[in-house]
Every structure is written in C-alpha cells, then in structure tokens.
C-alpha cells in the first residue's frame, strides 16, 4: 500500500512541475493553426489572469497550495475550458472508461478463446494462419486501424456513424433506444481497440495454454475420457487464464493511451481529445487533473491485478 502512495505522490509532483517547466503559458496566443483566429490578450490582461489563477506566485507556493487544495478535494478550475476540472474530466471519463473496459474485456475473452483453440490445434493450418493474422493486427497502430475502419464502416458501407458518442440532439423515446444509439456509435472505436490489443492476449493465452496442456493432469483428464471441450474449457482454461487476466489489468495504461488516439480519430467525446488540447494549450490545472485521473486508474488496476493474482494462484502470498 505504501509503495502505491509513494508512486502516487511522485506522479502528482511530476504532473505539477513538468507542464510548468515547458515553454509557453496558457495566455499567450501569438500564432494560430491555419485559418484559425485567436484573441490577443494585452500584457495587462495576462497579468490579471495570472493573478486570478494564482500563477503569479512562486512555483513552490503554488505547489503547496495545490497539494493543500487536493487534500480538500479541490482539483481546480480549468483555465481554457472555464469549468471545474472534476466535472470536466468526470463527464468525459465515463466515455473513455467504458470504451477501455469494453474493449479490454472483449479482446481478453476473444484472445483467450482463440489462443486456446490455436494451442489445441498447435502447428496445423488453423494455428499458423491465426498466428499470422494476430501478429499483423498487433503491429498496426490503433489510429491507423481506426482510420481504415472509419472509411470502410462509416463512409463506404455507411453502417456506422462518422463521429461522436451519440446522435446529436436526438430525442429518444426509451432508454433502450438511447443505449442502442450509444452502442452503435461505440462499435467502430471498440473494434479498433480490440484489434489493437487482441494479438497480445492471443499470444499469452496460446503459450500459457501450451504449457498447461503438457502438464500431467491433462493426461489424466484425457485418460478419464472427458470430452475435448470439457478438458479445454474447464480444466485447462482455468489455469491458462491466470497470466492473461493479470495482463489485462496491467495493460490498462497502454489501452488508455490507445484510446486517446482512437478518440481523436472518431471525434469521440472522451478524455483523449481533452488531454491533447490541454497540453497544447498549456492548461496546467486541467493537465494535472487528467494525468491524475490516468494515474489513479492505472494504479488502482495494478492493485486489483496484484490482489487477483494472489487469489487465482494460491502459490503467491
């Protein structure tokens, strides 16, 4: 527990200092993207805003009040977005977390099934082709896969919406319709993330299953005359699944990273776009909030993985 606390403190300290050491500030807009216009703040206005957000004080004082405020549950007010960071991130976190959880679960389950089947059919055509396909998928960057799916599934076939997390301004008769609408929008981003992670789970499941299948108790099971599916999915899978499941929790950080890019491709209303913008805009307070959110999520999941591993594998205490 103590190590988690130390890690957390270390992360939030980095979160605080790194953005502020980058060149640039949240109020200077000298340039703009092509065909964009920005407001020009006068030097006096910049001073005023800095005082308003407490950015005129020495860094160390700012750090102390940041920690103090955080202990009271006050994360702060975004400079650019003009809203309480908790509310701002909270509303979008739900979208990102759902994407991540669903795609992680699907890729884990699918990876387990396909990996087990591949192990069972080791070295025949099924295994070899599946292996090849999985390697390919895991090497394609998520955002590229996302773009391909966007063109194919949304623009060309027209089966899925082009952008967003839900139909804009639609009025839904029932919550079921609304849920379906959300699912409909989430299909492509989820598939993208699943394909990006599937290969990894497939490999782990396959090798883990191969080890398990060579164990003595497998021969016993076969000797007892049990059906193949029972041997594979009841006796072997339970043991083979352990590394896959721990991997699932440990890869959360990477999946979050992938989600950030995929959200940008599909204009999905998650934290991803917000994070990119906050860095580009040097919105220190928002950056702190978002990175803290990611840190807490990943640390929690690592902790859960630790616990789960202990539970699943009695040898570890």
């Amino acid at each position, binding site marked *: 527990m103590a190590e988690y606390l130390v890690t957390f403190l270390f992360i939030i300290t980095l979160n605080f200092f790194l953005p502020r050491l980058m*060149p*640039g*500030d949240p109020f*200077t*807009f*000298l*340039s*703009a*993207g*092509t*065909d*964009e*216009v*920005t*407001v*020009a*703040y*006068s*030097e*006096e*206005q910049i001073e*005023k805003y800095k005082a308003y957000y407490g950015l005129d004080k020495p860094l160390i004082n700012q750090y102390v009040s940041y920690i103090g405020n955080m202990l009271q549950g006050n994360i702060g007010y975004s400079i*650019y*977005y*003009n*809203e309480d960071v908790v509310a701002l991130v909270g509303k979008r976190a739900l*979208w990102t977390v759902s994407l991540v959880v669903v795609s992680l679960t699907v890729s884990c389950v699918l990876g387990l*099934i396909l990996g087990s*089947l591949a192990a069972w059919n080791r070295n025949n055509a099924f295994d070899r082709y599946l292996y090849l396909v999985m390697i390919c998928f895991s090497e394609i960057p998520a955002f590229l896969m996302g773009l391909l799916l*966007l*063109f194919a599934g*949304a*623009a060309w076939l*027209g089966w*899925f919406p*082009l*952008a*967003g*997390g*839900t*139909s*804009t*301004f*639609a*009025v*839904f008769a029932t919550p079921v*319709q609304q849920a*379906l*609408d959300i699912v*409909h929008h989430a*299909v492509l981003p989820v598939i993208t993330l699943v394909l990006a992670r599937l290969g990894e789970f497939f490999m782990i499941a396959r090798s883990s299953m191969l080890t398990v299948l060579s164990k003595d108790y497998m021969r016993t099971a076969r000797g007892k005359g049990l*059906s*193949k*599916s029972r041997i*594979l999915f009841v006796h072997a899978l339970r043991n083979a699944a352990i590394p896959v499941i721990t991997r699932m929790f440990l890869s959360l950080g990477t999946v979050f990273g992938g989600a950030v890019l995929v959200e940008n491709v*599909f*204009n999905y*209303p*998650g934290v991803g776009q917000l994070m990119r913008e906050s860095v580009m*805009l040097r919105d220190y307070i928002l950056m702190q909030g978002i990175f803290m959110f990611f840190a807490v999520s990943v640390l929690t999941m690592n902790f859960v993985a630790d616990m789960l591993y202990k539970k699943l594998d009695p040898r570890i205490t």
Partner: protein
Amino acid sequence: MKLIERLQIIIALLVCAALMLVASGCSSGKSAGTAGVTKPLVINLAGGDAGFLTPFGHYPRGPGIFKMNLIFDSLLERGEKGYIPWLAEKWEISADGKTYIFNLRKGIKWHDGQPLTAADVKFSFEYYAKNPPVSDELAINGKRIIEAIDVVDDHTVKITVDKPNATILGRLGNARIIPRHIWATVDDPKKFNKPEALIGCGPYILKEYSKEQGAYKFEAFKDYWGPKPKVDIVQFIPVSDNVLAFNKGEIDLTAISPDLLAQYENNKEFMIKKNPAFWGYRLIFNMEKCPEFKDKNIRQAFAYAINAQELVEKVARGAAVPASAGYLPVDHIWYNNNVKKYAFNIDKARELLQGKTFSYTMLIGNSNDEIRMAELIKISLAQAGINLTVRSLDEKTRDAAAKKGDYELIINGHGGWGSDADLLRTVYANQKSSGQSPSGNGLYGYNNETINELCNRQLTELDPDKRKALVFQLQEVIAEEVPQIPLYNTTGYIVYRPAKYDGWRYMFDHHEVTHSKISYLESM
C-alpha cells in the same frame, strides 16, 4: 470436431446479435431525422467545443467568439464592406473626436422579453471596465479608452473617450451589449454559467449545448428587432472528417483542400467559394540578436531570395496568394497595389549581399505546411549565400520564443490580417512593452522614425479619406523597408450545396462565412 461446431454456432449467434444491434441503431437514427412535416430550415455545421457562449465564457478563438456573437448583438455589425448600423441606427462623432453619441433603435427586446435601453449599454461598458471580456478591444496599450458614459435618454448614449483615435468607433461598435437586469449582481462572470447568462438580444437563442460532444443548437429568436433570420436552426455537430461528413450530407458546408476541388467543380449541385486572404505567414528578423538585419539591403536580399510564388504552389497548392511586402493583404479594404514588389531574383539578392555569406537558425511551428515551407526557403536562400538551420517547435514553445525574442529568424502564422489598418502600427511601430497581439510585439530591434510617425498620424486622423491616404503611404514605406517578410496569405476553399442554403456572406475583414452573423440573416 464437436467443439469447433459448437463454437461456430456461438460465433454465428454473436454475429447475428451484433447485426441486429447495428440495424436497430440505424433505424432509430433515421427516424429521428425525418420527424416533422413543415420543415424548418436546419443548417448543420462542423462542431467542436467553443465554450459557454457568454462574452466571458467562450474560448479565446474564432469559433467561440463568433458563436457568442449570434446570441449577443453590438452597437455596430461587421457587414460585407465595413461596419453597418446595428443596435445603434445612427451615431455622431464630435469634431474633437472625443465624444460619440449613439442612437439606439426602438423596440429591441432581450430573449426574455425585457426591453433593451440605453441603461443596458452604459451598464455593459462599465461592467467590462471592471471585468474585461475574453475578446476585449476597449483598451489600447493596456489603458481603458472610455472616460465616461452618459445616458441621454432611453435610446441615446453619449460616450466620452480619453483621446481621439480612428479605431475607436469599431472598438465601441464591436462590444457585446449584455442585459443589466441579469449581470448587475454577478461578481465572477467567468464562473457565471446559469441558463440566464445566455440571454442576449441577438438573432439566435442557444437551445442546447453539449460540451463533451462539442455540439450547439441555435434557434432563431422570434422577436428579433432586426433582419429576419433565414435559417431557422443552426446546429454544430461533432464530425470526424469534414469532407466525409459533407459528402454524406451530415454537414452543409465544409472547407476543402485544393486537391479535392475537382470532385465538386462543374457540378450544379455544389458551389465553391474562395476565402479572402486574411490569414498568413510571415518571416520575422530579430535585429537585436543579429544587428546585421538592421541593414535594409540584407532584408531586401531575403525578400528577393524567397520564392513566394513557389511556396503558394507547392505548400498551399494554389490556395493562397503571395503576401504584399506592405503587409496589408490583397483583399484588405485598404490594400495598396503600388507598393514595391520583390519578384524572386537570386542574382539581385546576391548583389545586395555583396558576396557575403550568413548562417542563421530559423524557428518554425510543427505543422506540415511550415516544415515544407521552411525547407523550400532554406534551399532558395542557400543559393543566395544564406544558410539556414531549421528548428521545428510546438505552437506554444514557438510563441514563447517569439514573445521573449529568443530567436534569430522565426516564421509565425496567424489570422486577423483583414482587421483595421491600425494593425500596421502594432506590428511596425516601435513600442516597447506595449503588450502583444498575434501580429504584434513590434519587431525586435527595429525602429524607423518615418514609419512611427505615419503610424501615429493615421491613428489620430479621423477623416477616413485622409487616413486611407496615410495608410497607403505607410504601406509603400514598409514595402521598401521590409522590416519583416510577409510570405503568403491563405485563400482556402469552401464548398456547399446552394439548393439547400445560399446565403453565405463574408464580413469585410474576416475569411469565414460561417462566422458572419449576416450569413444567417436576410439582407438589410
């Protein structure tokens, strides 16, 4: 294989279930679109979060400013050729240029039905003095311009300013008028985000806003005082790829890159428009760090050795025009065509450099355009004997370097080139610590008495014709001096379907039709 068969069945079922989900999703989406018999005109545009649309809550960028303007009117409005009467139907400026009397129209209503009076105007300006809005033009060099505001009667206000200045009418005219009965008790306007904060007197009412989706829905205000809104509902919706969304009919107007023009040309269904060139790149010398840049010959050598036409063709792929050496772009209402032009000429550049060679580091942003541009400039300057090292930085890092003067050469891209000609003063006149603007901060180490004097004279000249003559003269001096090198101004293309809506119009100083209030209204 029993197991495989069973799996096949499971997979088949799963696929069926997924397809059903998709199908039901599709049908629910469509039924939402076709509701209603007498169809109001709904225009959909690419969205994106631009903030809470009060003068204090929107984000400091174009889309936020102009969406907010749909809700809040101002004394004057930006028309196609210049400022046009808006909330004020007429105005008078005293001979000494210090008193402005505005006559407001009668019968103007706020969205909540209350009447707008001169007291609201007075209140707005006084409120801004204490709480500057995001887009604040009521200060010059950090000093508030308004000295006093008097309510003469319910429909007349008298504003006294500190000194005569040619830009003041536009500055006063552009300020959003906010309702006193709502804002009088608000202490921290940045955090005031209750629904009533969005009560304005403009042609549109904000009906829905989703921050995380970046979606806005505006509905025409029935009791609007002014020109009738032609578009009943304006919606900004999330879009992943603008051109795909336009082709599918999800949005009604999009910017297109010149490479895609052919798809829409010679087709009655589509209308293509070329935007006025009010956005541009410029190359800035730091004469403090490199005093040799104070030599006009060297600056002119740069101007001759940069092939702006090539940049337009290869970087902007035709969707731009070479910038004027006199800074004000071709589409500016006061552009002077008779300024010195620097056609690409390496021999002339070499001659001006007198066989000397130089090496500099040039900072640029990290967009593809800037990187390509920098490489082309590097090649052509090398022919003249100037060797460049190019360093690409993210936007904010580059801004910080530009502000601190931490560069030898820097390329900066920004909008606003169509604004009032006084922008020449903020760029070229020496004015230490006078604040910054996208075009401003002066030029490090540059000081020219003729330019300073002309800049200050045009600022205080209230007769538009005389002022225009001064600005023309100023452009000629600037083009000869080339204290910095304007590179090119972009003229992006937009495409829309005229059968659905054809009212798009440009404001005289801005390059985006979707930003103009007049685009959505009948002509006055």
